[in-house]
């Protein structure tokens, strides 16, 4: 009985191995950047005169991204043409 169970387990392992998925893309390694460190865009104060988009809180990546995305939508003139 034990032999059958063992055999079934080995068979199942080999059978399921066929379902495994190989990584198809190159995994990029960050490398060893030797230069000076840079600051993130959201670690700055928003400019005093914000023409379009919303403003963000200094250091808050989420609010910076939503401000940028709001400004990006300004490139979608379909909103202006069709949805007014």
């Amino acid at each position: 009985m034990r032999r059958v169970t063992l055999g079934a387990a080995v068979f199942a392992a080999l059978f399921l191995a066929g379902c495994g998925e190989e990584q198809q893309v190159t995994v990029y390694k960050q490398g060893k950047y030797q230069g000076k460190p840079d600051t993130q865009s959201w670690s700055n104060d928003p400019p005093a005169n914000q023409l379009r988009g919303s403003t963000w809180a200094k250091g808050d990546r989420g609010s910076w991204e939503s401000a940028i995305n709001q400004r990006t939508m300004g490139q979608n003139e379909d909103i202006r043409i069709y949805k007014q």
Partner: protein
Amino acid sequence: MARMKFLCDAERCIECNGCVTACKQENEVPWGVNRRRVVTINDGVAGAEKSISVACMHCSDAPCMAVCPVDCFYKTEDGVVLHDKDLCIGCGYCFYACPFGAPQFPQAGAFGLRGKMDKCTFCAGGPEADRSEAERVKYGRNRLAEGKLPACAEMCSTKALLGGDGDVIADIYRERVLRRGKGSEVWGWGTAYGPGKSGAQPPAGGKS
């Protein structure tokens, strides 16, 4: 998490080179360098002429980063590929590796001088203090730190060139393509640019 990308709509690009000029002006790009350029195929053939604006595509697995012998490239958290000009030795490996010819070398000096590499920064500056004079002189203007998008995309008159978070600009483009349709009806001013009236709909399946 934002991944900054460019997307150019070849159906809309009219080869005006406004993006090239905007980039040159905004970043005060050195002589001999065009960070962005417009490529046209089938030039002069009616209906078959297509133009596309090309610059650094800020690759996810950037070959320039892989081949740089002095490791002067880095990728920001929002997916912009930048480099440190203080470290660059101007060897030109990145130029050979890049499929888009994005890395450029200033040639204004005597004897065909090959200076430090210069390329599109997605208007995100470089490794100097954000919005500082040193950053502007060396890398150009840091518009992302001002909450703005690259000048080329924002200046594009036909909105052929889109720039921003890849997911957001893909949504804009998808909506545009769905509205435009496919096949022979995607030809004509009204289909490409809309009827020009608020609240109106594009022409139903026909040329305009």
